[in-house]
């Protein structure tokens, strides 16, 4: 190969030319990385001996390559140029041997010579024995297949012709292909192998393709499974799969492009039987708000795309229909389609879920098999669904998790990442520990039982290794994201039994660590000498099948630092300036609450603080009694470690804002003394606005209210808006024709200009300082419309007058904020304001559509997820004139929903328990202070040690990356990633979880 080839320098010249053009000659030489690959798309691998004999790809392992006995070739499609680049995969990319790296198939022409094929290559596969590879091309007007014999992957000799478009056997397809797979037509009972699916044509013999002088290829006797090699090609435009004899393509005269010999065409069906919509469960047992699923008799046109072949079954993604086809190709000549898998979205049953790519897992040691598929049209990012296709499995819908919580993008039946999923593959990996007899079993589970002596004890965590996040022992799905990250999903982690807390919980009821049903007789997972047999992580759910793998050992303290959810410090309370002089006693108190089966506990820094129960002393006591507490606190549950972002600052604000300032609310009178606020762009339901109807749901479900109490609760706790807009200038011509005057408006609503501080950074005063007349209670909420009424008056006449004035005084789009009423609001810097409210379409009697706010179907979110109701007390034992100021818990007022009979902490099953804020990421209660809580009082705390998924990242090499394909190379213990931008072909070491540099480009 020539390093001075024009192709190699084409890009660098472009990159360099611009700065040269701008600044003239440079004094210093610019080092530019030379690369030859461009717009790489897909890859396949073939293995050869040093003398050119093809072998199954598993024969090319690091040992054989290191000894120079084997060469592993990567064939990488070049989508832009219609070529296949050949790369002799180096044993050590940092020190290329002379014959390693990109192979120049045309040394007589400047530039790297690649295998020229038709334009728009879409997929490439190799036969099991590696004798040939096949490329599907979707060139406009010339779709087809090209065959690349492995015998022709070297630089041609002087006696050979240059490799060009006419070197390769090829044939045309009736439509553009999408994906290819190689299946086997097995031998007959007598061991004979038919040359065609048409058995009358006899058994196979020496094929014409084997007798060519240049680039011979015969699949007849290639290593690998016995039987005739058949190509299965998906044709989206025809909605079918076709079966083509691979050798027949190889036998085509190079340079010709006659129709491919299609032996079988299988039109794919869209069988939705059994796809009846399921009833989505909500905590209240009521149906949630979502448009109905598409009718089962909807006609879909199948568009098969990605293929995954495993154990004789072909799984076919479909971009046109909500099915994943399942085709039995154990006999490739008689493919039979069975009942399909049924992609769907539990949170959006109305969505027609289609798929682009699929991957099938190997059979796990426990006898399970799974299919993963990419839901391309999911939002905000393409997600991944998992299907159980184990022998005997009958559920054809995505696997659902019952305890997925917290993240707005977390859904029970799919995994979504920070960027769309592009491709996926599975790895089955082990690092077996051999016993004294030199025997080890692949898939041995780690055994944490202190009394056990099984081989599994060898995998326990120890200073020398053992179970750990980075120890990939098991079956894992590796999901390639468009941003260059590779996410890891646990499928069957052999070390999972040892990834847990030391304490055991034999009870069937899950504790706050997510542990349950531990074997009787084990109190702690420690040896007699105190050494743990498990990792000692805080949760039993650190490893969960089909969910992202943790990138760190979730424990805090000692040498680990903070790797489990922990408070950086006790929460702090910030108060508005008007109440800054109040005492601790007078202020509200944020305090942890015990878990149902254990005392409250939380790491503060690396110190475990624990509520003392009884007289037993504990180190680092956590005081949760409002009469005694000197610090604010909360407990952090550990059942759901994935609910915690890696770190987060959380605020809890009284009557906090749930929307930023929205710029254009148009106020008009509604004719009944109230107002309509039109905000066409706000998406108010999506922002979680709570109207009385939704508040009523909270009142019923959470507090068991009814009758007048329920109505009062709904009215008091529905959100309200605060108009933050300034009045038009008093000289504005508007006032001359308006039905209100500037003075009148200024007197009622205030003029923000009056309060302007020249030195203030913000022109507007805080909403705490705005007049109460600017507050309007939400009466009804829709996605882009609110019905509101003045909040602080009960007089109907005054109410109507305020509404009239508001519509007149703010005649154009007015800015405003939405605030929660008489409650506290939790907002996380990473997770935001969490709620389960969605917009749901409702058709009015006139046929028009409105979008009402309602509880959504995502069961991982409650509509009051971020709303906290404070607890008051019925009585106070303090006596004297300042008694009320000294009560640790403020006295109740009428219509409070959580009232303690006397001062003290809330009991889990006593009065006020309904106001305990218990989510997967926090457990606490807010006790009212002796003084009423004031708007914008704010508790602040920071949580560190949240969930950090295990990801590999191409971004450490370059930001110019557009990954396209991921493949597993178990014989090398590596993952291969094809990047269409700058990296070409990159490899990750699975033992070290690092990208190997330089990449091959």
């Amino acid at each position, binding site marked *: 190969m020539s390093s001075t080839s024009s192709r190699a320098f084409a890009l660098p010249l*472009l990159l360099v030319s*611009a700065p040269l*053009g*701008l*600044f*003239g000659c440079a004094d210093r030489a610019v080092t530019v990385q030379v690369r030859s690959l*461009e717009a790489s798309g897909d890859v396949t691998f073939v293995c050869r001996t040093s003398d050119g004999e093809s072998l199954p790809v598993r024969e090319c392992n690091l040992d054989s390559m290191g000894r120079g006995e084997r060469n592993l070739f990567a064939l990488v499609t070049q*989508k832009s140029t219609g070529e296949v680049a050949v790369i002799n995969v180096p044993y050590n990319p940092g020190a290329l041997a002379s014959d390693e790296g990109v192979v120049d198939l045309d040394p007589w022409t400047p530039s790297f010579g690649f295998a020229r094929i038709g*334009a*728009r290559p*879409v997929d490439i596969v190799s036969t099991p024995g590696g004798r040939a590879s096949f490329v599907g091309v*979707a060139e*406009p*007007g*010339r779709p087809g297949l090209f065959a690349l014999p492995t015998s022709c992957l070297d630089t041609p000799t002087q006696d050979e012709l240059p490799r060009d478009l006419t070197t390769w056997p090829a044939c045309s397809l009736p439509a*553009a292909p999408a994906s290819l797979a190689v299946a086997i037509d097995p031998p007959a009972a007598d061991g004979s192998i038919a040359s065609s699916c048409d058995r009358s044509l006899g058994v196979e013999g020496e094929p014409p393709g084997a007798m060519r002088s240049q680039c011979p290829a015969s699949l007849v006797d290639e290593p690998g499974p016995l039987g005739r090699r058949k190509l299965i090609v998906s044709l989206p435009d025809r909605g079918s799969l076709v079966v083509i004899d691979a050798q027949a393509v190889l036998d085509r005269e190079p340079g010709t492009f006659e129709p491919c010999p299609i032996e079988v065409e299988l039109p794919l069906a869209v069988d939705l039987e059994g796809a009846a919509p399921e009833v989505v469960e909500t905590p209240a047992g009521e149906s949630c708000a979502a448009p109905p699923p598409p009718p089962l008799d909807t006609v879909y046109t199948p568009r098969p795309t990605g293929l995954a072949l495993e154990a004789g079954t072909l799984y076919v993604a479909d*971009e046109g229909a909500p099915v994943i086809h399942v085709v039995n190709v154990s006999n490739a000549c008689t493919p039979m389609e069975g009942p399909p898998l049924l992609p769907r979205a539990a949170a959006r049953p109305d969505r027609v879920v289609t798929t682009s790519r699929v991957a099938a897992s190997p059979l796990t040691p426990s006898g399970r098999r799974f299919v993963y598929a990419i839901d391309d*049209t*999911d*939002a*905000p*990012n393409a997600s991944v669904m998992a299907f159980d296709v184990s022998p005997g499995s009958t559920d054809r819908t995505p696997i659902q998790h019952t305890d997925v919580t917290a993240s707005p993008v977390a859904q029970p039946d799919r995994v979504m990442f*920070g*960027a*769309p999923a592009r491709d996926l593959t599975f790895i089955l990996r082990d690092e077996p520990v051999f016993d004294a007899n030199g025997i080890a079993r692949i898939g041995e589970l780690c055994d944490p039982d202190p009394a056990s002596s099984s081989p599994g004890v060898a995998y326990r965590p120890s200073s020398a290794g053992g179970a750990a996040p980075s120890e990939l022992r098991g079956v894992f799905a590796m999901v390639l994201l*468009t*941003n*260059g990250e590779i996410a890891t999903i646990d499928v069957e982690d052999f070390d999972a039994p040892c990834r847990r807390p030391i304490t055991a919980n034999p009870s069937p009821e899950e504790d706050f660590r997510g542990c349950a049903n531990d074997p009787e007789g084990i109190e702690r997972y420690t040896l007699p000498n105190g050494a743990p047999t498990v990792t000692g992580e805080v949760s039993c759910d650190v490893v969960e099948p089909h969910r992202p793998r943790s990138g760190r050992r979730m424990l805090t303290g000692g040498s680990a630092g903070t790797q489990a959810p922990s408070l950086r410090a006790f929460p702090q309370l910030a108060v508005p300036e008007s109440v800054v002089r109040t005492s601790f006693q007078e202020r509200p108190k944020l305090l942890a609450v015990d878990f149902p089966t254990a005392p409250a506990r939380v790491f503060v820094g690396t110190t475990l603080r624990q509520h003392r129960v009884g007289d037993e002393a504990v180190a680092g006591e956590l005081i949760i009694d409002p009469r005694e507490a000197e610090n604010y606190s909360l407990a952090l549950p550990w059942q759901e470690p994935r609910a915690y972002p890696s770190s987060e600052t959380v605020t809890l604000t009284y009557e906090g804002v749930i929307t930023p300032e929205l*710029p*254009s609310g*148009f106020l008009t009178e509604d004719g009944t003394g109230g107002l309509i606020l039109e905000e*066409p*762009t706000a*998406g*108010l339901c*999506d922002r979680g606005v709570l109207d009385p109807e939704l508040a009523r749901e909270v009142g019923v479900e959470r507090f068991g209210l009814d009758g007048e109490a329920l109505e009062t609760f709904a009215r008091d706790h529905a959100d309200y808006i605060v108009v933050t807009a300034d009045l*038009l200038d008093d000289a504005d011509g*508007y006032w001359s024709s308006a039905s209100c005057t500037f003075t009148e408006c200024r007197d009622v609503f205030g003029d923000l200009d009056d309060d302007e501080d020249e030195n203030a950074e913000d022109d507007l005063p805080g909403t705490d300082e705005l007049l109460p007349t600017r507050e309007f209670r939400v009466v009804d909420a*829709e*996605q*882009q419309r609110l019905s509101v009424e003045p909040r602080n008056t009960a007089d109907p006449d005054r109410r109507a007058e305020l509404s009239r004035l508001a519509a007149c005084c703010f*005649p*154009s*789009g007015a800015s405003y904020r939405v605030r929660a009423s008489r409650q506290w609001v939790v907002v996380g810097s990473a997770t935001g304001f969490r709620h389960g409210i969605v*917009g749901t*379409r*409702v058709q009015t009697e006139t*046929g*028009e*559509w*409105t*979008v009402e706010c309602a509880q959504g179907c995502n069961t991982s979110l409650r509509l009051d997820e971020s709303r906290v109701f404070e607890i008051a007390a019925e009585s106070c034992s303090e006596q004297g004139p300042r008694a009320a100021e000294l009560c640790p818990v403020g006295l109740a007022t009428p219509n409070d929903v959580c009232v303690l009979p006397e001062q003290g902490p809330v009991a889990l099953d006593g009065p006020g328990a309904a106001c305990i804020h218990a989510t997967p990421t926090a457990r606490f209660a807010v006790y009212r202070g002796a003084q009423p809580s004031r708007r914008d009082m704010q508790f602040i705390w920071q949580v560190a040690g949240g969930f950090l998924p295990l990801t590999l990242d*191409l*971004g450490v090499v370059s*930001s*110019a*990356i*557009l990954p*396209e394909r991921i493949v597993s190379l178990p014989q090398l213990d590596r993952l291969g990633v094809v990047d269409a*931008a700058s990296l070409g072909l990159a490899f990750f070491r699975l033992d070290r979880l690092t990208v190997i540099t330089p990449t091959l480009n």
Partner: protein
Amino acid sequence: MRPAPVPPAALLRAAGLLLAFGSGCYTTEGGTPPPHDIAYFPVGLAVANAARHLVVVNSDFDLQYEAGTVAVLDLDAVRGLTPDPCASDAECGEGRRCDTAPSDENGGVPSRVCVDLEGPYAGLPCGPVPERPLAERLLFPGRCQNVDFARPPVGDSLIVDTVEVGAFAADVLYRERPPSAPPEAPPGRLFVPVRGDATLHWIDLDEDGRLHCGQGARGGACDERHRAGAERDNPRGLRLEPEPFAVAATPDGTGLLVTNQTTGVVSLFVNRWSDEGARLEHAIAELPTNPMGVAALPPPALLALRAEEYPPGFLVTFRNAAEVHLFRYFSEAVAAPEAAYVAQAAVRPLTVNASGVDSRGITVDDFERAHAEAACAARSGVPRSCAADEACLAELSAEQRSELEACLSAASTIPLDVYIANRSPASLIVGRTRPEPGALAATETPVFSDTVPLTQGPSRVLTGSVIVGTAADGSPLYERRVIVVCFDSRKIIVYDPATRQIDTEITTGRGPHALALDTEHGLLYVGHFTDSYIGVVSLDRRFPATYGTMLASFGTPSAPRTSQ
């Protein structure tokens, strides 16, 4: 959009002049008048008047002249000099045949275009236009040599009209007169952001291809009145920020949003279909720096039937931020008593790429929804234009109106596709809106969920249809495509959103930049910025041999001066 590499001397000169222009002292006096018969660093193309005219905006990028120009070409004449692709004689009509076999006339290489059977140009693939020497085809792709604008080998000059505009024009937008405009309004109007004097030129284009912008004489310069933004003659006393870059408009051409490249500002112009023309009304600052591409969100036809609050939307991309911003335009009608204004409604981060910064062009495709809306009109027995014409709607029976409304309501939920040309890494970012009936404006912020690798230097992107077949009645069949121009690598990428595959890559000459689609004729016009000419590319997939190739070139190529 990335400016072409220019010689240092020219850059310095340009920078100096730009500074002068930035202070608002653009003048058309005292310099060398620009030539009116050539393309000169073309930056904008627009097909107008039912594809009878092609508008070419020349930027005068190296400031060799005192002004840029806007020229109108006769597209009938251009097409007449452009070879017609074919597969058989049947497609070529009487007196012509399809050049499918080697011959002396084609030099042994069939052109697969229609050639004359007889006459002086019989059998010649380029007809009266000479063939380009093979050695030149690497730099200037295409078999046929360039045709001079003013002196074509047959017929009259291709130029219908020209006017002068400020130097450093950056873009062009054409809008036909909407049904709501008074009949005396011009049939169409051009809007040209000009960086040199920080203005938005507005120029009327009549049905004969004549330009009207207050120029003193044919070919003269547009007057002050047609250079909006230069004066503080607006309710808020605003002056257009420096470096206006891209422009987009509502379908009726009344609201226009202009990005200001260097100041992190977007500016709202309101166009009145009268002599008042466009006027700067509002601007939003404090955005990420380098706002670049802008695209309007086409409103659904349903709005004509239902008085739903719907402020038109615009999407804006940025060079320095991996974000797309949604702005809403509140017209004078709803913003009263204040003047029209624009508000920032949403910000959507771009997370599909590792970096995501350096976004350039953006386009919104409502083809699927528009197709459904047309079907609604057909089903209700009214012309398609009726769905957006209040007078026509008023004449419908209650039953017709109800049926039409129900159908259009369903159509309004069809998502819009959004495409962004991104440079770091070079990719096409794909997004969709998720419209909900009853909350259309609130659900139009697109979600970006896919990224397609491209070659170096994507800049502009547009959507349109290519011809893929012929119906039984002989009419062409179309499919949707996304077309992305990659300046640096001299490529135009044609992406098929249905198959999510790149359909073809068109190799162009140096500096492809401006694009305009002539759907009916299956042609794409490409403005070559660097060498200053217009290429014509086939987008007729019925003929694979010529699909995505340069059929003809117009305008004498002129390399940047230091490279000559």
